[in-house]
């Protein structure tokens, strides 16, 4: 029953000699059974003994990440590790120096890689420069041609100066403007886009022509320089031009070859990392090892270091202690020279952590409960009953044979399939929950007899149509669910509303009563008589005497066969009369005898009224008096001690006094209890009303389904014939889409949320303390093969 109450915990002191600390803690990591307690959460990480190791691990991880990024860029496959624990245990007997070897080799290869990348970059820059130069020559040549033609046509020959180069496209406009201002407009700037893509962005060739002899030449050079643009000398004459072009082309080919070679080299090195060894790529294997190392050191940092030993505090579930002990004994058997240290049970004032052993089925339900609050240590775990109540409450709201079946089928599908590598992976965690939700929606659909807003006549209706009147066959009961005839009757909605509403209240009262009973169990478990007598019992009686009685009335009314339905008593009126007119005999009694009913209701009301002051008064009074007694005793002891020890050691008793005065004041107790009582009394009304959402959402669901059905295919079906068939087929896509989108997605979410609310507010506030904290095992399982899934910082912060 470890899911009913959390596992029993024991607190231990662990003392390990310094030299074997790594080994011991390393082997404990395979157990997943130990919760380490930080000896001083306030101490900054930097001041802890292993912070420099963590730093080193992080640096290595950064290097590994760089290599992996490079591998991804070059499309070299990395195989992830399927089982981290298996991989780590395959290392066998190693020690902490192995990390240093790894660190060394990784840093070495990372440096090699960056060296190669650097030389690659250099050659690529060179390549770009050559390409730029070639482009410039191409453009300049065509311009020079024009210029020559122009010069020849001139009468007075004028000398022109030509400056060419390459500049970034984004700077082009500003460049032109500055040149224009500097030369005061007496120049011609020409730019041509280069098609080649450069890593720094689009570039353009610029070509400035100005009259020779102007002084601005130097200034322009400076401006070109300040734009970090490249300027190229132009060869004079056609021959020199061609030669230059030849040279450049040759260089281009050479550089390209060089680049290719470097890339192959890099690839070869990266291929080495990709090689599969121990079921995953080498680089991934190293990453996991280093990740483990970091995790290990973070855990070691939680221990307290004294000169020769590490001492730590830890929680171990009682049932697991023997495994831990066994592991430590084994370790000393393997190598007798290693002192393993010792575990000692100890006492602590800290509350133990809460630990449940979860499986794929229970995990999502526990998650629902944990989102509200972690259960207190050894408190009844609401998740246990949630396993069924949550899907059931959902099913009541989502009740529809058709939709429920779809959901159920989907649930079966995701449970039977291996989802891990499919597109349904997000559902993997919650697959059993979906299965149950689908099942209960399906089941409740039969109870309400609602199939996509139609009723199904599965077992043969008990009514038959006779002269436009329904007649009921004698001694006939529809075996399961609602008689389908209601679906065609005029008062269909009125009937189902009243039926669903009453059902909702009955379910609600049962659910809440169950919650209160759990409170009673909690009180018994913690042997808190006060809570049992003055909280559980009055609350239990109060709810049963008021709303429990109402449920009884509802069921009685169902069982009674009224000749004339207008004579049937209204339950609401009966309930109101019970409180407002407690002495008036009911006019329309439900009981066979009106006097009996009056007496019953009077007695129940009396009990309920007595319950209120019982809840309100006794608890604070008793707590207060017991506090006073304790204080008196404490004072007595204190005085004695002080007189005995002659005020020598005042410090420790004064601490005691301080702790005692920490008890709540009487006023606080009273206020607290008043709030608690009012909340319960009002809550029992409003919470019962809150369960009406079971009816409201079911109504909304069925009405939506009806609207979609009538707006789309129903006309076609009603018309019949060929035309009707075509109409129905034509409208079917709309029907399917709206059913899927609105009902199967939106309404599903809505029902889920409302079920969640009923679970959290109406049910859990009856008994659930939710002030525990989670047991976080020191476990290598957490080092996922997937990079983002593991974040030690998260576990750390929730730890503190």
């Amino acid at each position, binding site marked *: 029953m470890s899911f009913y109450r959390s596992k029993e915990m024991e607190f231990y002191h662990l003392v390990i000699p310094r030299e074997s600390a790594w080994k011991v803690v390393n082997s404990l990591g395979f157990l997943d059974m130990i919760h380490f307690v930080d000896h001083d959460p306030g101490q900054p990480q930097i001041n802890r003994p292993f912070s420099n190791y963590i*730093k080193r691990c992080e640096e290595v991880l950064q290097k590994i990440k760089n290599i992996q990024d490079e591998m991804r860029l070059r499309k070299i496959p990395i195989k992830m590790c399927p089982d981290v624990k298996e991989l780590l245990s395959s290392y066998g007997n190693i020690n902490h120096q192995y990390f240093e070897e790894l660190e060394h080799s990784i840093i070495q290869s990372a440096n090699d890689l960056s060296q190669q990348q650097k030389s690659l970059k250099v050659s690529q820059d060179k390549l770009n420069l050559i390409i730029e130069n070639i482009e410039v020559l191409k453009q300049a040549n065509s311009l020079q041609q024009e210029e020559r033609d122009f010069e020849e046509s001139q009468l007075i020959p004028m000398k022109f100066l030509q400056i060419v180069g390459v500049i970034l496209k984004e*700077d082009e406009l*500003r460049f032109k403007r*500055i040149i224009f201002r500097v030369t005061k407009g007496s120049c011609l700037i020409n730019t041509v886009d280069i098609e080649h893509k450069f890593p720094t962005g689009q570039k353009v060739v610029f070509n400035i022509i100005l009259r020779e002899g102007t002084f601005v030449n130097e200034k322009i050079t400076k401006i070109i320089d*300040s734009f970090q643009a490249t300027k190229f000398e132009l060869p004079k004459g056609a021959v020199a031009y061609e030669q230059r072009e030849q040279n450049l082309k040759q260089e281009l080919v050479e550089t390209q070859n060089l680049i290719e070679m470097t890339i192959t080299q890099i690839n070869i090195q990266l291929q080495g990392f990709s090689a599969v060894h121990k079921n995953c790529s080498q680089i991934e294997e190293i990453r996991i090892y280093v990740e483990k190392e970091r995790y290990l050191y973070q855990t070691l940092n939680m221990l307290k270091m004294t000169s020769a030993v590490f001492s730590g505090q830890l929680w171990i579930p009682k049932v697991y202690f023997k495994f831990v002990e066994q592991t430590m004994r084994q370790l000393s058997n393997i190598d007798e020279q290693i002192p393993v240290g010792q575990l000692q049970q100890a006492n602590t004032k800290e509350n133990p952590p809460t630990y449940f052993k979860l499986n794929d089925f229970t995990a999502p339900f526990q998650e629902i409960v944990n989102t509200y609050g972690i259960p207190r240590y050894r408190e009844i775990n609401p998740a246990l009953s949630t396993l069924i109540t949550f899907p059931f409450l959902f099913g009541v709201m989502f009740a529809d044979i058709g939709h429920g079946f779809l959901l159920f089928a989907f649930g079966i599908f995701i449970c039977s399939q291996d989802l891990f590598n499919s597109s349904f992976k997000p559902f993997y965690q919650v697959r059993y929950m979906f299965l149950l939700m689908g099942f209960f929606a399906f089941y409740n659909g039969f109870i309400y007899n609602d199939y996509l807003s139609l009723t199904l006549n599965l077992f043969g209706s008990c009514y038959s149509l006779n002269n436009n009147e329904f007649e009921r066959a004698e001694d006939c009961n529809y075996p399961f669910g609602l008689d389908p005839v209601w679906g065609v009757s005029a008062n269909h909605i009125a009937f189902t509303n009243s039926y669903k509403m009453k059902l909702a209240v009955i379910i609600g009262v049962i659910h809440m009563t169950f919650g209160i009973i759990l409170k009673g169990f909690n009180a018994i478990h913690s042997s808190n008589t006060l809570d049992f007598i003055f909280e559980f019992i009055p609350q239990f009686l109060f709810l049963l005497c008021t709303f429990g009685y109402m449920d009884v009335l509802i069921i009685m009314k169902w069982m009674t066969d009224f000749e004339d339905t207008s004579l049937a008593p209204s339950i609401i009126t009966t309930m109101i009369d019970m409180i407002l007119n407690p002495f008036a005999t009911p006019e329309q009694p439900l009981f066979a005898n009106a006097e009996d009913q009056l007496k019953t209701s009077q007695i129940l009301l009396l009990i309920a009224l007595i319950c209120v002051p019982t809840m309100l008064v006794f608890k604070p009074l008793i707590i207060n008096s017991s506090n006073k007694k304790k204080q008196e005793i404490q004072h007595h002891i204190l005085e004695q001690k002080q007189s005995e020890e002659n005020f020598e050691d005042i410090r420790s008793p004064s601490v005691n006094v301080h702790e005692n005065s920490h008890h709540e004041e009487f006023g606080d107790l009273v206020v607290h209890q008043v709030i608690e009582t009012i909340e319960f009394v009002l809550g029992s009304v409003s919470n019962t009303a809150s369960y009406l959402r079971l009816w409201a959402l079911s109504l909304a669901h069925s009405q939506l389904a009806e609207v979609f059905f009538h707006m789309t295919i129903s006309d076609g079906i009603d018309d019949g014939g060929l035309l009707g068939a075509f109409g129905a087929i034509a409208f079917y896509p709309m029907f399917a889409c709206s059913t899927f989108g609105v009902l199967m997605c939106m309404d599903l979410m809505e029902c889920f949320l409302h079920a969640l609310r009923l679970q959290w507010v109406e049910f859990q506030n009856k008994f659930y303390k939710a002030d525990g904290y989670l047991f976080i095992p020191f476990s290598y399982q957490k080092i996922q093969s997937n990079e983002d899934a593991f974040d030690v910082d998260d576990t750390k912060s929730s730890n503190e």
Partner: protein
Amino acid sequence: MDLCYFAVDDGYAEAIIRGLRAGFLNEAQYTQMKSCTSIPELKSFLEETDYQNCLQADQPQIATSLLRQRLKKKLADEFDYIEAQATGTLSKFLFHLRCRFMIDNVVNMIEGLKNKIDIEVLLSNIDPLGWFPEIKNIKVLEGDDYANLYRDVLIDTPIGVYFMKFLDESIENMHENRTMNDIQNLFKEMKPEYIRTSLKKMWLEDFFRYSEENLPQTSKEGLVSLLKFEADFRTIQVIYNSIGNRDLNTVARIQTTRKQLCPTIGTLYPDCERQYLAAAQLEALREAVKGTENYRDLLKDAPDPLKREEFNVSTRTLDDIMYDEECRRYALAFDGQGSYAVFYAYLKLKEQEIRNIVWLAEMISRRLAKNHPGWKKIIIPFSHLRK
């Protein structure tokens, strides 16, 4: 009324700022920083704070200048992000804020070029908040020819307006029959610090006017009071620093310079202008500002500028006092709702934080003793609110 509509356009940007508030280092963290003994230790401490990502790629033994650059880069990234989310008035407003950093960058570039510092170094030291594409073209500057620099490069930039005004004013203030040579001499003698102060004054005036005319009511109120204080702060600083300054030897010269550098806004202008322009001693300055707000209290503790030589590191200078007061006001402004003053205050407070960290890094790298008075010389943003 504008409070109702504030969130429509600017709610998101403001929300981001409020979120970034959590990134400020608190007093406990400052105490921890002070206890660091080496730069790597400081760096690894900073990596546990909001500054984690911007420092990760660097060597543990990070140089102070690089550290400052990284911190500024982070601030600039945040500011860029907010600016990208801002629309309409707010985005114009934020751009105005940037101009201050642009002025700093331009003057730093000019100063560096004059001292023949390598352009790459200068470019790498640019404050990323005030980056604009033309900044690298300042290299074109020849000698002290600011007029040409303006005409060739700065004319297109957002701060071109201020630069033009500055050139106009400088030339106007000269005597009647000036020659080309005189103007060149004027530029040659001009200190970059002087350019900076005048440009910033113009920016401040311009910003003040902009805030007064274009911003919604709530923002206007918040900003105008902050800017008025800043203007007064500038005025007091200028007067204070010019007391006993040897370069300004004649009474006429001292008055013109002061007049050119003191902003024409704020609570002190124009009522006390005549008095403070003429102030030749600290006492006179105190007398001049006594009628306004609490400046007299602030100046009461300021050391006498005539005894400047006696100042040492433990002296609480006027700047320290003023920064402290400024920080208090910005922290208060930061808590105001629905006002653009929040953005202004955020920028100022973050700057103060960066100054603090860099100062501490400097102290640590010099290995000063822990009882050295310099350790106390940091002003922690938001620390005033708790008192």
